């Protein structure tokens, strides 16, 4: 589970990164030529981080399935997320409600900036941010309550 030390920080800061992406979007749409390179330099790693988080979550799920044959669970990537994710206000079926609201806000923002007529740099920026947000939401998903143990005393 070494991936946690790499992926927990970007997952936890996802809402702030999303707000940063929203602030950057009008600038990219207004000056696409000037911002193309910085947007790519930031956007591609952002999307890759999101993909890595989604992949890590998938690996965890597969490992968990492999190791839960009567045994305890592996630590859940979302389990130690002691921040707002653990509160009811932000929990949307186990996902971080804020990330979905921010993604909707990003889409709406692109719409306000011209939608399909907006510079494609802005659209690409939205895609990168969306991949990142979906990955982070998936990674930090709070697991549903586990079923009871397989035996009377599963650890013994």
């Amino acid at each position, binding site marked *: 589970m*070494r991936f*946690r030390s790499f992926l927990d920080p970007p997952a936890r800061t996802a809402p702030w990164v999303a707000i940063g992406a929203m602030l950057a979007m009008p600038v990219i749409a207004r000056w696409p030529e000037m911002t193309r390179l910085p947007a790519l330099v930031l956007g591609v790693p952002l999307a890759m981080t999101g993909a890595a988080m989604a992949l890590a979550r998938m690996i965890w799920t597969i490992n968990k399935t492999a190791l839960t044959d009567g045994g305890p669970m592996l630590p859940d990537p979302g*389990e*130690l997320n*002691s921040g707002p994710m653990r509160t009811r206000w932000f929990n949307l079926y186990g996902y971080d409600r804020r990330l979905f609201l921010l993604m909707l806000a990003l889409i709406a923002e692109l719409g306000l900036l011209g939608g399909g007529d907006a510079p494609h740099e802005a659209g690409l920026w939205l895609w990168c941010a969306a991949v990142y947000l979906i990955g982070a939401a998936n990674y930090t998903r709070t697991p549903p309550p586990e079923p009871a143990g397989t035996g009377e005393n599963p650890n*013994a």
Partner: protein
Amino acid sequence: MLEVHQFPCLSDNYGYLLHDPVSGDTACIDTPDAEAYLREAGHKGWQITQIWNTHWHPDHAGGNAAIKAATGCTVIASAAEADRTAAVDRFVSPGDVVQLGDFEAQVIDVGGHTLGHIAYHLPGASMAFVGDSLFALGCGRMFEGTPEQFWTSLSRLKALPAETLVYCAHEYTASNARFAVHADPDNADLASYAARVAALRAEGKPTVPTTLAREFKANPFLRADDPAMQARWGHPGDAVATFAALRGAKDTF
């Protein structure tokens, strides 16, 4: 004199707070439920300064981050499980010593339930916190280790002084007793122990801590080197095979 505050948490775990009144230091032994630990420490008026993890399972280390965030305590865990335990400040290995006030706890390798499972033995207080390696009348399920490894681990616990108080992490004794009686039906010590367990559980009282002396006489897993047990389980002269047979039988009991 160290004080131990024992309280139930989750479905069948025991939480332990170990407090040294001289230094004021308090250690959580594992962290199954952060809220319960913080609440109990608050009731006692103790400031949590350390967490001692026995192994990585979430019902033992799942509350590390929350308790550390709330108290700023130091988290100590097995170096062999470094990549599976969260929020750890100090990794320890067998032979290391951890300190609570003036009391020293020796770290013992008790792998078998998990590969890097450790126990904390406090010779000065005649107590040992063994996590899921040893239970009253039982031992932990062998999730990661081998029978050789697990038997070696139990042998290390067997080498501790008989008067040592054993604090295990779950209240499993009643069901363990049913298997123990099945495994060793002619053991009079076990029969009286099982009767006492039934009486305690009927009153809703804990059966933990136990003592090593009591377990030596009645715990079938600690008696895998006993010739009578070896003969009964078909492996004369082979403690590891006897332990493996007992463990396998318990898994499906």
